[in-house]
């Protein structure tokens, strides 16, 4: 059977798995962003902890995803829960580091201007630090989103659903069309999301900081 015929035949299944894939990714990215940005802001206030926090998230980041799933299963079981936990853990490095770097590299003169206007620390965070650091934070969210799409593919093996299911099934049954029915959409999804974030980053850069 040609690839196209297989795509048409299993269009419903592919669509369903694509939606599952997007759902897992969106949940993971949203939760990770809340946690990662909060930790990132926190360590700009406690600079001494910054290096160790970023170091630990870096170590987690290097663990191969299949191994991390393997270490979570004995404690959490299989399904979507361990998948989401793994995705959230992986995203922390990109989010924490970018939030930290985004805030700590703000031009001192911008800081002085904010202080000079008599802003409280909370106002300063909300009206100066976060908006100015937003493009860098967005870049972190972009990295996390693209990475999560990739890791979610592997999570299909532990029963989390998504397009990886077709790839694993296809490999196991030596079914080329089935492999490609998972591999091609997931590739397009990753590239598409990456590009979407490029556009978003551009749109969210404060006009005063645009080059």
């Amino acid at each position: 059977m040609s690839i196209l015929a297989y795509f048409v035949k299993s269009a419903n299944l592919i669509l369903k798995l694509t939606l599952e894939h997007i759902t897992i990714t969106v949940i993971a990215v949203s939760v990770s962003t809340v946690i990662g940005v909060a930790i990132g802001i926190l360590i700009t206030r406690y600079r001494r902890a910054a290096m160790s926090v970023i170091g630990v998230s870096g170590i987690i980041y290097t663990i191969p995803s299949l191994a991390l799933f393997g270490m979570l299963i004995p404690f959490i079981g299989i399904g979507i829960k361990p998948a989401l936990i793994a995705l959230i853990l992986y995203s922390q490095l990109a989010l924490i580091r970018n939030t930290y770097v985004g805030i700590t590299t703000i031009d001192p003169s911008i800081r002085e201007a904010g202080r000079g206007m008599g802003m409280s620390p909370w106002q300063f965070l909300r009206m100066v630090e976060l908006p100015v650091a937003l493009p860098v934070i967005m870049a972190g969210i972009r990295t996390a989103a693209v990475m999560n799409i990739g890791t979610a593919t592997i999570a299909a093996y532990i029963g989390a659903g998504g397009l990886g299911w077709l790839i694993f099934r296809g490999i196991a049954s030596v079914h080329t069309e089935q492999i490609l029915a998972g591999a091609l959409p997931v590739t397009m999804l990753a590239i598409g999301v990456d590009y979407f974030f490029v556009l978003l980053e551009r749109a969210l850069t404060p006009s005063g900081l645009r080059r």
Partner: protein
Amino acid sequence: MEFLLYCYERRAVILLAGLRHVEVSLIAVLLSVLIAVPLGILITRYRRMAHVVVNSANIGQTVPSLAILGMVIPVLGIGLKPAVFALVLRGVLPIINNTYSGIVNVDRSVIEAGRGMGMKGREILTMVELPLAFPVIMAGIRTATVLSISVATLAALIGAGGLGDLIFQGIVMADRDLLLSGSIPTALLAIGADLLLGGVERRLRKGAVQEAF
């Protein structure tokens, strides 16, 4: 404690899988370096090509590893060769990018100084650009190594062996000890490789600065 006993009993299997894992990753990283470093150097000479190559490499890096592995099978089949091929596809991209940016970011005045001393293109490359860009290239090799170790676990699926075999079997058989006897060594291997190469990179950075002054 029980788990340690299990590992001790199965030490031959785990060790063999671990060695296979290292072997597959190492071959892939070496091939990636041999392909990517010359390519990275080449595109610094043809800047117009560089834009296309670096952008394609960036897009390529977004492609999920399992998708790469899946797309390699219809073309090359299963076994060690397609697995290494998939690992190399993953590994070359960060090394190309870092070789290129490492060389491009070498201070112009240092290159001018080399020219002033009468160095030719090739001498500038081997005696100025490459030594100064080496820490950055090394960072790319480090990324590629960690990636290779990670993708090699998946490559077990297409018959390349390695620690991924134990993990996949452990998941399918719901065998906790088997699962952990694959997962923990894999994690340690990746973290160990990252720390080791990170140390090398730091030394190189120090060395590069000292040599420059």
